[in-house]
């Protein structure tokens, strides 16, 4: 089984880098290096999101109930409760 904290860290890191790069690319659309980095991060995030959803619970509704016949979207802890204690950004 994959390590939950490690996967979450990967999701938080890549997602934040993608957020930040998106704003940068909005004002620097011709920066090839930033664009290459964006693509690489996008791949990493996709892999981590999909592994996390398979092993634990869905973070987006797209992946809810993929493997089960019951509604799993409600299994995900509320983000504002502070349960992701070991995740650092």
């Amino acid at each position, binding site marked *: 089984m994959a390590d939950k904290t490690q996967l979450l860290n990967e*999701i938080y890191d890549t997602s934040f880098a993608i957020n930040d790069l*998106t704003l940068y690319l*909005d004002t620097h659309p011709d920066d090839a290096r930033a664009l290459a980095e964006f693509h690489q991060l996008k791949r990493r995030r996709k892999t981590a999101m999909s592994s996390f959803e398979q092993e634990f619970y869905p973070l987006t509704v797209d992946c809810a109930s993929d493997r089960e016949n019951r509604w799993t979207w409600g299994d995900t802890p509320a*983000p504002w409760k502070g349960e992701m*204690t070991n995740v650092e950004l």
Partner: protein
Amino acid sequence: MWNYEKRLQCPVSIKKKCPKTAQFIISQYGGPDGELSASMRYLSQRYSMPYNDVGGLLTDIGTEELAHLEMICAIVHQLTDGITVDEAKTAGFDAYYIDHATGVWPQASGGVPFTATEFQSKGDVFADLVEDMAAEQKARATYENILRVLDDDDVRKPIIFLREREVIHFQRFGEALECVKSRLDSKNYYFFNPEFDKQMMPSQ
């Protein structure tokens, strides 16, 4: 439209309750330079923005601000969830408690409710972008005021993150403003509004 991702942009995990701290941090939810007014400002301004890429930037930053108000609300919630009646009597939090118990409601730390008069959507690209840059500076200054009176690292960490984002957004809005200027008719050196007076926008 929007899709929800069930996680915060930056984790918030606070071990020590403190209603007093919640009472002043709530200003960054519903106060004059808070995240709610930031998101509503950018998401409102984008409709009449005459440049597609600047409208896109307003959407992306406005969306990030929604994630920021969620972090602020998570901080307020975790600082107050499960407090005792005696703790609710804490000076500063007592008045809030009477109206909302530990519910999260958008107000300034001084008790003034959130109001749309805190931001503008002027329909003028220069007025709007300059306001956006000022708004980011005011929010940064508020986060610095908060950091000066905070000593709990669990609360400081997400606040430091939010402060840094204000700096980045200010930078991006500044770039958008320069970009808009470069697209004006060369005779439009007093920045007549290309958003309404479309003839001032020769490059489109």
